[in-house]
Structures are given as C-alpha cells and as structure tokens.
C-alpha cells in the first residue's frame, strides 16, 4: 500500500504535458501561451526526477537543475519580447504576430 508504481507517475507527467500542449494550441493570449510552455517544462522535470528515483541515479536531478535555470532565462527573454511586441502592436494577441506569413 505504500507503493506507487513508476508508470503512474510517468503517466501523470504525460497528462500534464499534453494539457500544456493543448493550451499552447488554443490560447490567443501570448502570456498564457508562455505559461503553458512552463507547464510542459515542469512535466518534463518531473519525468526526470521520477527516473532519478527509479534508477537511483542523481543525474536526473542535475538535469532538472539545469532545466529550471534555462527556463528562467528563457522566460526573462520571452517576456522582454512580449513587452517589445506590445509596444508596437498594442496587443498581445497571437493572431497578430503573423509577419512570417507565406
């Protein structure tokens, strides 16, 4: 009764990941899209940690360490972009950032 099979945790991770992916596809607000990206990253972090525990190898946690760091840096830059974009377009609607069309 004190056991949770690894596959349960991993399935939970994939649930979170795909929830995040779905949010990425359907939201129009750029900031919410970025948040969904963070969700996905978290799901991946948990996968790493689960494997670290299952395989008794701390390499997974080291990876998480770095992923968190990079996620922070990426968020900073991404939000800077959002701010710059807002200044020009006066909105944060993803439908309006289609300059690379065709």
């Amino acid at each position, binding site marked *: 009764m004190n056991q949770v099979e690894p596959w349960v945790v991993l399935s939970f991770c994939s649930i979170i990941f795909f929830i995040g992916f779905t949010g990425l*596809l359907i939201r129009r607000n750029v900031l919410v899209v970025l948040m969904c990206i963070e969700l996905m990253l978290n799901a991946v972090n948990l996968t790493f940690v689960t494997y670290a525990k299952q395989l008794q190898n701390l390499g997974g946690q080291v990876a998480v360490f770095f992923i968190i760091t990079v996620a922070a840096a990426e968020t900073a830059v991404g939000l800077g972009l959002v701010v710059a974009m807002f200044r020009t377009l006066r909105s944060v609607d*993803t439908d309006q950032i289609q300059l690379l069309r065709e």
Partner: protein
Amino acid sequence: MLFLVALFPLIGFLANGLWHALVQARSVRSGSLIPGLVGSAAIGTSFLASLLLFVRLKGMPVGQRVIEDVLFNWLTIGNLSIDVAFRLDPLSSIFLLFITGVATLIHLYSIGYMEDDETPAKFFAYLNLFCFSMIVLVLGGSLPLTFLGWEGVGLCSYLLIAYWYSDPEKASAGKKAFIVNRIGDVGFMIGMFIIFAKFGTLDIAALRTLVQQAQEAGAAGIDIGMITTVCICLFVGCIGKSAQIPLFVWLPDAMAGPTPVSALIHAATMVTSGVYLVARMNFLYDLSSTALHVVAITGLATALFAASIAVAQTDIKKILAYSTISQLGFMFLGCGVGAYAAGVGHVVTHAFFKALLFLGAGNVIHGMHQQQDITKMGGLKTKMPKTFLAFAAGALAISGIPPFSGFFTKDEIVWRAYSSPEGSVWFWALALFTSVLTAFYMTRLFSLTFLGKPRFQKSAQTPGESFRVHEAPAVMVIPIQILAVLSVIGGFIAIPHLNWLEHWLSPVLGQPHDAAAAAGGSGMEWLLMLVSTAAAALGIFIGLKMYANLARVDRIKERWDWVTGVLRNKWYVDEVYGFVLIRPIYRLSLALWRGFDIAVIDRAVLGFGKATEWTGQTARLIQTGSIQVYAFVILIGILVTAGYLLYGVA
C-alpha cells in the same frame, strides 16, 4: 592545286564581306571601285588558274585527262564516306573556263553598274561567294560536294535577287527563287539516297566504274527501273535549278535583281548547272531511254512554251529571261537525245551571247534611267551605238545565223534531235519552229529597243529636266564588246565534222552516235543546216517587217487579243499555281496553326507552367506565420510517429 581555283573567290568573298560588315555597314560611302577590283581580281585569278589547268590537261594523254585534288575527309558515317575531293576532267575544265571568264567580265561590268549603290562591297562579296559555290559545284568529285555547290548557288541567287530587299516585291522574288529551287532539290536528294542505297558510294568516278563493270558483266544485272528512277529524280533537281517546266516560275521573277546578277546567274552559270549534272551523269542516263525521253520532252516543251511567252512580253529583262528558259530547254533536248556534247556546246555559246544580251540590256536600262519597258524605248541606235552593235551580235548569235556561235551549237542540237536514235522527226520539227520563234522575238526586242523612232520623249519626265539618253561608260561597254567577239567566233569550237569540242569531251561524254550514216547520210545534214538557217532568217525577216510598222502591230494585237493576252500573262501559270497549290497549303497551314499549334501544344506547354504555379500557390498556404498552427502540425506529427512506433510496444 585545284582547290586554289575555288579558294580565290572565297578569299574575295571574305575580304569584301569583312569590309562590308566592319566598315560599310556604318554607312561609309566608298564607291564601288575598290570592292569591285578586289572581287574582279579574285575571280580573274581563278580564270587564269583555270586556263593554266586547261593547258595542263591538254598536255596529258587522252585517256588520263583527270587532275584530282583530295583535300580532306568530310564525313564518315558507317558505310558512307565522303571526301572533299575536286576533280578536273575535260567536261569540268570547259565549264570552269567559261564560268570564270564570263564572271570576270561581269565583275568588271558591275563596277560601273553598281557605282551608285550604297553597299557595293556586299554585292561583290555575294558575287564572289556565288562563284565559289559554282566552282565547287563543277569541280566536285562526288555528288554531295556538287550538291553543296548546288545549294550554295541557290543561296547566293536568293541573296542577290533580293539584293534591294527593302522593296517587298524584290524580296518576294528572292524567296520564290529559293523555294522553287528547293522543291527541285528534293528530287536531287532522293536521287542521291537511291544511288547510295544501290551503289554504296556517291563518288562520281567510282559510280562510273561500277556502272561500266555492270555493263560489261551483262545487261541483265542492271535494274533499269531503278536507274530510270534515279535519273528522273536527279532531273527533278535540274528542273528546279535550270527552270524547266514546271519549276520555271522563279526565273522571270528573278529579274528583280540587279542586271549583272541576271547576266551571271540566270544566263550564264547557275541555270546551266542542271545541264552540267545531266552531262556529268551521262553514264546513267545512257542506260535508260525512258529517262532520256523525259529529259528531251521536258526540254522541248519548255523551249516552245517559254518562246511563246517571250513573244508577248514588254519588259526587256523578262524577254531575255524567257529566252533563257527556252534556250535551256534546247540544251536539255540535246542531252535528252544522247548528244551531251551538243548540249554542253550550247551551254558555252549561250553563256557568251546571253551574258552579252543581259549586259547590253543593263546598258540600255542604265542609259534610259531605269526604264525597262521596250514599248517606251526606240531609236537607241544613234544614242548608244556601241551597245547597239554588240547587242546586234548577240541577237544574231541567238537567232542562229551562221557564222555566229549560236548557229553551230543550236544547229547541232537540232540535227541530233533529228538523227539520234533517241530523237525523232517531231523533235526536229518542234525545235525548228522554236528557233523561228526565237529569231522572231529577239528581232522584236531589238527592233523595238534600238530601231525606229524614239518613243520616250512622249513619256512624262520631270519638267525642266532634259531626258538625255547616253551611252554607258567604258567599264560597262568593254566587257560587252569582248563578249560580242566571243559570240561571233565562239562557235568555231563546235563546227560539225571538225568538232573540237566533241572530241575534247569524248572521254567523259562518250562518242556520239555516228548520226550521219543512220539518218540519211551527210547530205541530209547539210540540207537540214540550210533549213535551220532559212528558218532563222525567216524569223528575223518577219520580225523586222512587222515592227517597222507599229500601227499595224497594234491592229494585229487587237484582232488576236485573246491569244496575245494569254501569252502576255504567261499562260496564267503563276495564277494556276497560286490557286491549286499555294492557297490550299496556306489554308492548311493556318488550320494546323490554329487547331494544333495553339490549341494543343501551346495549351500543354502553358499548362505545365500553370500547374506548377498552382502547386506553388497551394503550397504557400502552409506558411501561415502562426506558431500555433505550426505547433498543431507538430502535434499531428507526434501522434503519427508515436502511434506508429509505439503501437507494437504497447
């Protein structure tokens, strides 16, 4: 050594051509003297070389009179090997002599005639190129090389007829000449194909040997039907090039070119290449009576037909053009009855007097300020005496009055038409009648142009400008006078029974049948000679008498208007061709163009383009620029890939 004869005019062509392209095209008016001298020097040197070669040939023993010069191998494909080989034998040496000689005189004449032209260097370049092609034609040792020259003269004919191409009519005339020639050339080519298929070689000497061997092996081994076909195919080429029925229509139109061109190409040289070809291939024609009959009948019919048209024409050059067609018919008649030497003899003398007549006409046109209608001339005897005398010599020669050159050669043909085993009385009779016509229309021309009272002061001229008719400058008169002398004495090379020309040509053309014995003895021959002379004299007499009284001529013309109308309109041949051939072809082309070229091919080609464009336009819709769309596509990719890969595992 032989190739030098061809090389000099080629150099002249290049020199004048480069001069024209680099200098004259930038409109530097430099006059015709230097280009003309360059051109004349080139062809004159060829003439001297021809003389030297002739002398050399004469010094060789009779059976071995061949000088050969193999330059290089043109092509070798499978069994076919063609060398660029020039071969000089008695036949080609005669042709070479009169070609280069008359051409030199005409070049000198052109210096005067073309002195006001804007691009004289181009003119002399073309003339030299023509001479080069003609020399290649005559010296060619194999049929393809001759054909090369054949096409070359056709090309130069086009270039020179359409020399003043800014006039659409003149340009059309050039086109007509080239196209009609081309139709004949198809026959020539088919003949070559059959020869190669059956004999395996296109070299003329080799062919001759093969035929001789086949003859010695027995007549049964030779496929006469095939030989006849070959001969007729080759003759089709001659019909085109030498303006026989039905492909003569280009020659009268070709008078649109400058008169020296008419003299050189359409009187003395190019049109005689057909006769050269038949004479050259005599060993084939001798095998097939049918082919010979075709040649003779075509020639005779053409001679009569063209003479009838010449009687009713009013343009001085057109009369001479139809006269040329008629005389060419005579030459083919001669060949067609087996008397090749007689035909060749007439080629030589015809070159002299026809060139003379054309150049004389050139003087008249020049002196009358570009007037060519003889009804508006008259009385030029006193205004252009030197031309008058020379022209008279030419007219007498062509009419066949002894001792002028035309008499000997034309009479030889007429005699052979009577006496040869391939000939017949009818040939003789019709040929005789044509001679009468010839004398008549020449006298008409002469009379209307030079005799009587001048009719041209009545024609409207620019008020205040005096219409002075003058004799031509020396450079245009002296060549005519030289030709006149030749027209008088040139026939002596072919006096019957002492016939030097016939003997000279016999290694190539074979011994003529001993006609005298077959046809009633030499008495008959002299009798017929008298008859010929009488016929010519009759023609001249009628002509002089009739045209002394122009009012009577007009009355007669009115009474017989339906006849003269037909003759004047050339028996409506051009109109018939237009209706029967040209219009349907044009309509068919138009229909094909619209129905196939545009509808099918253009649609297909453009369709490819449109399809590509459509694909591109459709594909570009993928680039939406929205990352969420891209993410969606990624999702689909993940689903597909993972589903495929992991399905087995799960």
